[in-house]
């Protein structure tokens, strides 16, 4: 684990007498390596290390009998501070239905998570939820959402795959208003943020709907590209929060730190399995421990 690695490096160095700046530099190099191996983006790692160095180096460190543990504590505190101290709940609109739009890269888990969120809001918050199928590209995408809706006894609004996603989304919200739904969850097609045409389509959908929540669905195993993905989706699509999926895997999830640090959006939920029950509220401190390893 990172804690062991840092303590190991520093306490070994201490054996040679007084701790020097060079020793601390070695320890921070270890922190850098561990964060990169945990998939935290390089720019975020660099900024993080300089922040920790600033906080860690001082009287307290030179006098400490356990400098290794002190550095670890500073690293952990800094991680938790960046992740955001507390869980942030979903925003609800004062004027129903609350529209929630799911966006993100291909295969991240949007459709499955839309189902999970529908279940969460229906079962736990007793809301009347409508799911909207706007992915007209992927074969059987609409069917996929319909199967999930059926499993949950949640209505799915769809207009087949010959209409534009923007038109389907607008019609879904209109239907939601007319039929007194509390929440409309709009599932969208996966897209790479580098695809100009698809990003424009998503911007148009977002502008037409003005969702209360636009959630970036991000795979826990995302690597260095997380900063680019998050930056573009938040800037162009104005994401208000994120959901990190597949945290039941063994990916360390460093992308969570990158997203938070670069865009400031809060991670609201995490996906921890393929079943529709597998959705949990995000806890910043637990994520910090996971990234640290």
């Amino acid at each position, binding site marked *: 684990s990172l804690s062991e690695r840092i303590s190991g490096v520093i306490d070994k160095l201490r054996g040679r007498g007084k701790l020097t700046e060079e020793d601390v530099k070695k320890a921070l190099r270890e922190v850098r390596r561990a964060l990169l191996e945990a*998939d935290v983006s390089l720019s975020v790692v660099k900024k993080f290390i300089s922040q920790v160095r600033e906080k860690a180096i001082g009287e307290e460190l030179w006098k400490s009998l356990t400098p290794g543990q002190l550095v670890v504590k500073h690293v952990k505190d800094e991680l938790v501070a960046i992740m955001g101290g507390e869980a942030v709940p979903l925003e609800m609109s004062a004027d129903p239905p609350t529209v929630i739009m799911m966006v993100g890269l291909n*295969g991240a888990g949007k459709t499955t998570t839309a189902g999970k969120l529908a279940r969460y809001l229906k079962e736990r918050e007793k809301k009347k939820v409508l799911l909207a199928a706007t992915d007209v590209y*992927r074969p059987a995408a609409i069917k996929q959402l319909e199967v999930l809706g059926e499993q949950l006894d949640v209505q799915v609004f769809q207009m087949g795959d010959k209409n534009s996603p923007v038109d389907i989304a607008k019609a879904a919200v209109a239907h939601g208003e007319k039929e007194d739904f509390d929440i409309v969850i709009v599932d969208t097609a996966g897209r*790479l943020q580098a695809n100009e045409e698809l990003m424009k389509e998503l911007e148009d959908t977002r502008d037409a709907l003005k969702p209360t929540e636009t959630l970036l669905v991000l*795979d826990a195993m995302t690597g*260095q590209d997380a900063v680019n993905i998050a930056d573009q989706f938040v800037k162009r699509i104005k994401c208000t929060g994120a959901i990190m999926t597949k945290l039941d*895997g*063994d990916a360390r999830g460093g992308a969570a730190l990158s997203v938070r640090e670069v865009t400031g959006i809060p991670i609201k939920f995490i996906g921890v399995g393929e079943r529709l029950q597998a959705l949990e509220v995000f806890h910043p401190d637990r994520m910090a421990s996971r990234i640290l390893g």
Partner: protein
Amino acid sequence: FRLHKKVNEDFWEELEDTLITSDVGTSATDRIMEELREYAKENKISEPAGLTARIREVIEEILLTDEEKRTLNIEQGRVNVIMMVGVNGAGKTTSTAKLTHYFKNQGFSVLLAAADTFRAAAIEQLESWANRLDVPIIKHKEGSDPAAVVYDACNAAKARKADILLIDTAGRLQNKSNLMKELEKIHRVIGREIPDAPHEVLLVLDATTGQNALSQAQQFSAVTPISGLVMCKLDGSARGGIMVAVAQEFGIPVKYIGVGESPDDLKPFVPELFIKALFG
């Protein structure tokens, strides 16, 4: 590093940053950096231009770039079985469709097996591709045993003398031991029905995946020998450097890359182009 006039510390830092941000990982990056620093020192190289050829060579060496290693194990006169495996959402089903299109264009007869019997509308998704590409497909009901689908598909392929049997499996995270056991069983069933099969087991990786790809390569290899990688979604901004880390650690070659969502968005992997894109 076109911006640097000299091979100095700024140059080395930029090179390292490029490798790290491409997901090459710390271990492969360290190795590459060490070899290049050594080379620059021994050959007294002071201009970046003097290093470009060596940089390419070092990475190519890691990538096992001999053509043989990267072509598919397909032979005339037998049913060739290709199994697609990988974690959830990587691009297995779409890659199966792309390979179908690719083989059909080369004149091979293809049979598909819908062995993802778990995920919502997984069978419909592959069936939709089968209809679109006009190839037969073996499928059971949702919730049935994937090994049974594969058993039927192997026998159907033999009966029809299909050139290629493409098996699409369900996504699974590598730390789920019951799902990995299921994959092991599917692999055994194939081997019993068709000698030496599967001839190819392709691990499908998402180009945006970070260091977790190493754990994927390791744990999937433990249950079925992986003959090659298919790296998808390289049409995005991710450079897929993780393939370098996987090659260094496990010696698994990239055979194909996915560059889009259409059937013809599949290309054989070309190391030179990959390395060029790496240094943009």
